[in-house]
């Protein structure tokens, strides 16, 4: 009886991880000339914390996320996750990109299975696929192909593909940027719910100040390229948050002032 009860209970997600970005500077080479993109960024994400990054377009936000994901090494400075220096990509830090980048030749289910397959966990952890699909409300579309999905559904599938790995840090690069405004509002609530349920840490880039204020514990405002940190703003408002709450409206005005 006891063991049956245990198998029925959904596996709890691994708790959130701690990210420490220290004095990270990054340059690209553009037509032979160095292009400085990040300027001595120091930033922490505490376990289970939701941090949003705001900054002008082209300032280096995606670059910072790629460094955190381990897709590229920084020019200088260090990135440490759960006590270990980030040396490459790892499924404990999964990225959801602005484009869902689902593999068009795989069904939704097979797309969600990618992480388990790559890590050789498909045999033992297959049940997570259905769980993740259910979590994002796509259970009925498991055998659909990506081209049969709407933009919002595709982004949900991408979210499920990330969550199936039970990441300790979810890296979100404008994941809702291309969705229509109604879908975006719905997906913001979904994200807030998933984060509250699963307990991962989250680092979100967005160009939507309101989105940052609705979702994040802390909003980090970046300057234009090369990005420096202009301000860090704690959002202490209790959840669920009202978009037109007086505190959020005031914060929004402050942030827009910084970005102007």
């Amino acid at each position, binding site marked *: 009886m006891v063991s049956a009860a245990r198998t029925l209970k959904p596996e709890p997600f691994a708790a959130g991880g701690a990210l420490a970005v220290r004095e990270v500077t990054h340059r690209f080479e553009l037509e032979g000339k160095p292009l400085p993109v990040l300027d001595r960024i120091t930033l922490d994400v505490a376990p289970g914390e939701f941090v949003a990054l705001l900054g002008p377009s082209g300032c280096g936000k995606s670059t910072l996320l790629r460094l955190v994901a381990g897709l590229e090494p920084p020019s200088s400075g260090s990135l440490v996750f759960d006590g270990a220096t980030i040396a490459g*990509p*790892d499924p404990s830090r999964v990225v959801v990109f602005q484009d869902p980048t689902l*593999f*068009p030749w795989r069904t939704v289910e097979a797309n969600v299975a990618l992480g388990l397959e790559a890590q050789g966990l498909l045999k033992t952890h297959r049940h997570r696929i259905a769980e993740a699909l259910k979590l994002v409300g796509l259970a009925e579309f498991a055998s659909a192909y990506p081209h049969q999905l709407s933009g919002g559904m595709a982004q949900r599938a991408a979210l499920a593909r990330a969550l199936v*790995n039970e990441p300790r840090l979810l890296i979100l690069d404008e994941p809702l940027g291309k969705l229509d405004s109604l879908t975006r509002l719905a997906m913001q609530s979904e994200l807030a719910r998933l984060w509250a349920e699963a307990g991962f840490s989250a680092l979100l880039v967005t160009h939507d100040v309101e989105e940052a204020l609705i979702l994040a514990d802390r909003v980090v405002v970046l300057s234009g390229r090369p990005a420096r940190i202009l301000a860090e703003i704690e959002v202490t408002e209790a959840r669920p948050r009202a978009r037109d709450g007086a505190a959020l409206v005031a914060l929004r005005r402050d942030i827009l002032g910084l970005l102007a």
Partner: protein
Amino acid sequence: MSAAYDVASGEAATERTASPRRPWPALEIAAAAAWIGAGAITALIEEAGDFGYTQEFAFLLAGVGGAILIAALVGRAAPALGRRLRHWAPWLILIAVGSAGWELVTAKLELLPMPFFPPPQAILEVYLDDYPRLLESLVASAKLLAVGYLFGASAGFLLGVAVGWSQVVAYWTHPILRFVGPLPATAWLPLAFFLFPSSWSASTFLIALATGFPVTVLTWSGVASVHSGYYDVARTLGANRAFLVLKVAIPAALPHVFVGLFMGLGSSFAVLVVAEMLGVKAGLGWYLQWAQGWASYANMYAALIVLALGCSSLITALFKLRDRQLGWQKGVVRW
């Protein structure tokens, strides 16, 4: 509906009783009639020369007509068959009219110069009398093509993936492909016949070469043009290099690979026929050459028809394979 309605409107009543029945298959019956008519022309009109198998050919035409007629009647109960028959009926009529016309200008009226334009029954005669040799040639060609094509396609695919993936391989392969690739494989024939132990192995190699070049180039361009975002996603999900090649690069490149396979199949046909004409003492290319040597043009047409059927069947089979492998493309890409 009330009974009064039926009485008031006779038209509505007949329409209702008629609606579950299909319209009379006029076009299909016309096709059957055309074939039977062609058979009648063949059987009944006096021939200018003396040809064997005229009656057999007439029976064949009439038999096809009868089969069409039966299919048309059965097709009223079997919708799938009915639809297909209806779709092809205009073509069936054209073929029947064409056969009758061909029969008239050759065997009946002798309007075309004789040895070069044999009547259809002469070709039927080839199939009935010379089928062992034709069959043997078909098997020989199929064997040569299969070995060469499969070898070339696999080698081209592997090389293409390697070139698309590894900069070192690309560095050494690119100039060679640029220099040697555009050369038609048939240009190698004289040299290959001399270098290889047998003309069969030489031809296999050249068919493989003709197939391998387009498959290599297109596989390579397919692998090289994979959206880098796919690799980023896979890497953050824990993929190693083998996974990136096998589960990302190759499936993403597959549409390109199939273009290469189609192009390779086309060039392999050309090499096959030329190789068989020049050196291999078997196969349909050799049969064509042999028939020409004996001025037996009916045999040439007969072999050409077999060759055309064989080649188009292979292309169709490749299309089927592509549709199965690339079903996900429906609505994404179409060609």
